[in-house]
């Protein structure tokens, strides 16, 4: 919609200085872009000591546009050591003027000087160490809260856990299923194109099986959960922070770790292994569908090669990873929410950061697991 143009007045606003008197005329409307402004140095010719008066007999309608102009005069007069006699003004204009301060607010301090790169590097290092410590402490507190709750000595509201778990589990089944199905299919497709050249098409089954169980199902599911649930946790906690809800919890002495973080982390650590198993199955199903369509192999053969491709060790490896991923996403996203700023934009920043940290972290942890697996020979 175009901005509403106020009808320009038939009496344009004007002012002139007659001796010690300001003569105002016309309609002074703030929405009029051509409103006069006080010229720099207009008051040079004033005689200090005699007050400045106003003549508003020619004044038409007015609003804060006039008051803004009068305020400029007031401040200029203050600077020129001249008193104001507002008797000639409309009474409410002079009263509005009276509400305004005599002097302009001090200009805000300029930007702080940037510290040198070495200092910044040092600060960043200390910050990241502190952050790691805080996340670890939060994790420990959460674990302690969990243990206390399970042994009946601490408090945890099962309703929260249930709500969080439903959201992280059953509601995520569809998207986890779709992504893993497609992933399995893509793996089978890429594998089939290559392996068929060596007449080893049946090994597609092993390829898909081992890739899903060892890496893909766990990592993809974790990435989905980081985007879906981690972002939501961070946004929720950041919003609570902005509304002082976290402060209110603190005043009651309700630990954030057991009221907010524990249900979130627990929900993710409990559901992730199930989602992982489900992702494996669906991924293999995707691979199976593509392989059967593209290659000349039997369903029995595919199944046989899938089952013999990996041992129980691989499964446990994947399962462990998915639990670690779940705890990591839960903890980091809650922490990011807790240290967010207090504005609406900060909520967005926190959600984005939680997703980015979640995804990058999951992949980094996965790499770490690969190294460990290599060392201990799984």
């Amino acid at each position, binding site marked *: 919609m175009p901005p509403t143009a106020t009808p320009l007045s038939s009496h344009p606003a004007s002012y002139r200085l007659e001796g010690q008197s300001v003569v105002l005329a016309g309609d002074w409307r*703030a929405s009029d*872009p051509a409103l006069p402004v006080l010229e720099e140095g207009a008051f040079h010719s004033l005689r200090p000591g005699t007050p400045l008066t106003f003549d508003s007999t020619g004044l038409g309608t007015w609003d804060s546009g006039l008051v803004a102009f009068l305020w400029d005069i007031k401040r200029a007069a203050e600077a020129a050591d001249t008193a104001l006699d507002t008797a000639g003004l409309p009474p409410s204009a002079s009263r509005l003027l009276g509400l305004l301060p005599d002097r302009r607010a001090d200009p805000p301090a300029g930007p702080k000087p940037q510290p040198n790169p070495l200092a910044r590097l040092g600060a960043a290092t200390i910050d990241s160490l502190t952050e790691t410590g805080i996340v670890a402490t939060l994790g420990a507190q959460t674990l302690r809260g969990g243990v206390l709750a399970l042994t009946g000595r601490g408090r945890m509201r099962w309703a929260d856990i249930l709500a969080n778990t439903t959201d992280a589990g059953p509601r995520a089944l569809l998207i986890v299923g779709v992504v893993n199905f497609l992933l399995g299919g893509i793996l089978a497709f890429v594998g089939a194109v290559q392996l068929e050249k060596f007449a080893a098409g049946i090994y597609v089954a092993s390829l898909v099986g081992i890739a899903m169980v060892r890496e893909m199902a766990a990592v993809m599911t974790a990435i989905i959960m980081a985007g879906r649930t981690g972002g939501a946790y961070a946004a929720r906690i950041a919003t609570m922070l902005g509304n002082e809800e976290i402060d209110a919890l603190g005043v009651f002495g309700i630990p954030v770790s057991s009221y907010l973080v524990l249900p979130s982390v627990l929900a993710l650590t409990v559901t992730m292994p199930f989602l992982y198993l489900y992702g494996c199955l669906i991924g293999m199903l995707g691979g199976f569908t593509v392989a059967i369509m593209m290659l000349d192999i039997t369903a029995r053969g595919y199944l046989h090669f899938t089952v013999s491709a990996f041992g129980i060790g691989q499964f446990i490896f994947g399962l462990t990873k998915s639990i670690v991923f779940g705890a990591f996403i839960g903890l980091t996203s809650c922490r990011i929410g807790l240290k967010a700023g207090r504005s609406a934009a900060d909520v967005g920043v926190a959600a984005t950061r939680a997703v980015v940290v979640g995804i990058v972290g999951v992949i980094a942890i996965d790499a770490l697991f690969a190294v460990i697996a290599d060392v201990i020979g799984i």
Partner: protein
Amino acid sequence: MTEETMLALDGVTLAFGPKLIQRDISLEVRRGSIFAIMGGSGCGKSTLLKSMIGLLRPTTGRFSVQGEDYWAATPARRDVINHRFGVLFQSGALWSSMTLGENVALPMQMLTQLAPDTIRRMVELKLGFVGLSEAIDLMPSEISGGMRKRAGLARALSLDPDILFFDEPSAGLDPITSARLDDLILNLRDGLGATIVIVSHELPSLFRIADAGIFLDARSKTPIAHGSPAQLRDHCTDPQVHAFMTREREQGDNNP
């Protein structure tokens, strides 16, 4: 209805879905009047205000602005009418990712063709009215509750609207600032000819500034008295209104 009626409600019923808040509200706000909406907490004052700024459509009845039926108008026309409204929300409702200055400037930047310099001056002026010139570059999260209220008021004045709605403007303010705010409201009315609808519990301030009003009852869910706060105090026989206006506990209310 006279020429001078700015806002009129006629047999309006307000409800959130099936939940009835107030029924049968009829009132008239004259141009240049300061109209008080009174009543106990939770009786529907903010809801009534909401319906008068076009945020809640009444289930029955008619709401008109200078004789024009608000809800019968097209959405574009309603936008034009809304530009005449300045609203202070009960919670301030400042945009949290902008400084106070930007909060006041945004409506001017979006809806007028003023130059940035002029906007800056007007922002200083509006914040100066409420005594916040020093806080122009602060974020809403960095100021006190009372300051947030005042900043919300400065934002409501941003476009020099001629109809102002204030939801508890002086809640959370010290007596001196509160009295200053009353001066501001009176001068806005006298100087700019603004019509003001105000929700308030501050009796001294109500007696001083309001010249008309309505009293909503939470139990019967309907208005039980019309008139200026001073009239209601001196002449209204309804025990509940009387108790409210004189800060007494209602008779028969035995709670400690």
